[in-house]
C-alpha cells in the first residue's frame, strides 16, 4: 500500500506521485469522480492500475492517500 501524493498539473491533469518509487504519472481515468462518490480503480499513463478506497466526496487536492496496486 504505497502512500500516493495527488496533485494537479498546470494543465489540470491529476498527477500520481510515489516518492519511494520515483513514480510520477498522470492519472488517465478514475472509476468514480462524482460529487458524492470518489475513488476506485485508477489507470495511470503507463498503463498500471491502482485502487483508492471510496470516499463520499472528492478530496481536496493536493493530498496524500493510500493506494493498492492492482
Amino acid at each position, binding site marked *: 500500500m504505497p502512500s500516493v501524493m495527488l496533485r494537479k498539473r498546470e494543465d489540470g491533469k491529476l498527477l500520481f506521485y510515489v*516518492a519511494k518509487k520515483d513514480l510520477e504519472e498522470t492519472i488517465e481515468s478514475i472509476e468514480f469522480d462524482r460529487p458524492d462518490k470518489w475513488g476506485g480503480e485508477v489507470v495511470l499513463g503507463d498503463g498500471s492500475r491502482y485502487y483508492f478506497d471510496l470516499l463520499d466526496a472528492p478530496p481536496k487536492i*493536493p493530498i496524500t492517500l493510500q493506494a493498492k496496486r492492482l
Partner: protein
Amino acid sequence: MAAMTKEETEALIQEVLEVYPEKAKKDRAKHLAVNDQSLEKSNKCITSNRKSLPGVMTIRGCAYAGSKGVVWGPIKDMIHISHGPVGCGQYSRAGRRNYYVGTTGVNTFGTMNFTSDFQEKDIVFGGDKKLAKLIDEIEALFPLNKGISIQSECPIGLIGDDIEAVSKVKTKEHGKTIVPVRCEGFRGVSQSLGHHIANDAIRDWVLDKRDGDDSFPTTPYDVAVIGDYNIGGDAWASRTLLEEMGLRVVAQWSGDGTIAEIEKTPKVKLNLIHCYRSMNYIARHMEEKYSIPWIEYNFFGPTKIAESLRRIAAHFDDTIKEGAERVIERYQAEYEAVIAKYKPRLQGKKVMLYVGGLRPRHVIGAYEDLGMEVVGTGYEFGHNDDYDRTIKEMGNATLLYDDVTGYEFEEFVKKIQPDLIGSGIKEKYIFQKMGIPFRQMHSWDYSGPYHGYDGFAIFARDMDMTLNNPCWKNIKAPWKTEAAGSEAVKAVA
C-alpha cells in the same frame, strides 16, 4: 565530427560495454541510452538511482554529503555539527562556494567546520555525552547562532547513538532549534537520499515553527526561492530579477539563507524551485499542508530565463506580468551584446556534461543560446523524474549516461571528441591531460554566478576563455607534432 546517428551511438555504447564481465555489462547497459525525444517516460530507455556497481569508479557522494553539504550547510546563521570522525566535515569544508553575507564566526558560520571529532572511546562507549558537551560549548563560544543541526556521519547510525534525545534536552535547555539529522553516509545509493532526509528533517523540526503566528506581514507577491545554493552568488543574480519584476523574495533555500526565512516560507504565495532534485520533497509537502503551489524554473541563459520569468508571472496579476516583460526588455541589449560577442567564437562547438541534480538539463539552454550543442549528458544521482525532464531538452540520438563510470566517460569522450566537457573536480584533470577543454560545473571553477542575465555574461566569457585558450594547441610535446621535425632542424641549423 558530425552529429552521430542513432545506430552509431548505439554501437558506441555496445563497444564501451564490451570490456565488462557479463553481469556488469548487463547492469551498466541499463544506465546508458540513446536519447529519443519521442519518448514521454525515461524508464523506457534508462535506469537510474540504483546502487553503483562495486569495482567501477563512480563519482557519487554519500547521504551525509547531500544533507550537510547541500541542503543544511548553506543555512548561514545555524551551526551544523558534523557528528562523528573529523574527516567527513573537514575534507568537504567550504568546498561548495555557497556565498553569504555576515561575519563568519560571529553571526554566520558557513565556511567553518564544527565536528565532534570521534575517537575510539566514543565509538566504544557512545558519543551522546560528547554531543551534549559540544552543544554547550557552541552556546558559550558562539552565542549569536540561531540554531544547531546535528549531521550524522556513518558511525552514529552504526553504534546506535540517540541524538534525538540529546537534541530534545538541549532544545529545552537553550531555547533554540536543535535538529537531529539521520543522514549517515551509508544510507541510500548516493547523496540523493541525503537531500530527502534533510528535507524531512526541515519539515519535522523547523517548518511548522510559526504555524498560527500571523505577525509576519505578507503581501500578495511573496515567493520563496527553493533549491538555489548561491554558488558563486547565483541566488543573488536570480533574486534581483524576481524583485525587479515586482515579487518579494521572502526566503532563499538555502544559499545565503537563514533559519528565520525557512520558518516564514509557509506564508508565501508561490514556491519557485530551481534544483528540483534536492528540494522537490519540501515543495510537495508545503503544497499539501499549506496549499502553496510550486513551479520549476530555469535561470540559465536568456531563452530559458525569459520563458521562466513569464511562467512565474502567469501565477500573478498584470502588474507582475508587465514586470516580467519589463525585466526581459531591460536586459535585452545586454544579453544580445553578450551573444554577439561570444557566439561567433563558440558556434557549433560540442559539449558533454556530467553533473549532479539539475545542471545536466538546466544548462543546455544556455549553451544553445551561444550556438553550442550538448551531445551527451548524465546525472550522478538523478532519478527517473529527472530523466523524464531531460529527454525533451536533448537532441535526438545524443548520449545519456547515468552514474557514468570513470572508464565509460573516458571512452565516450575519446570517441565523440567534444570541444568542451563540463563536469566535476574528479574528472577535470583526466580530461585536461587528454587535451580537452574542461569547466568544473559544480562550483563554476571558482567563477560565477551563472544564474540570471548577469550570470549569463560570466558564463559566456568563461566558456570562451576555456575553449579558445591558446594552451590547448600546446598540449602535444613539440617533437611529437608532425610538422615539428623538419622545422626544428631548420631552426637549429
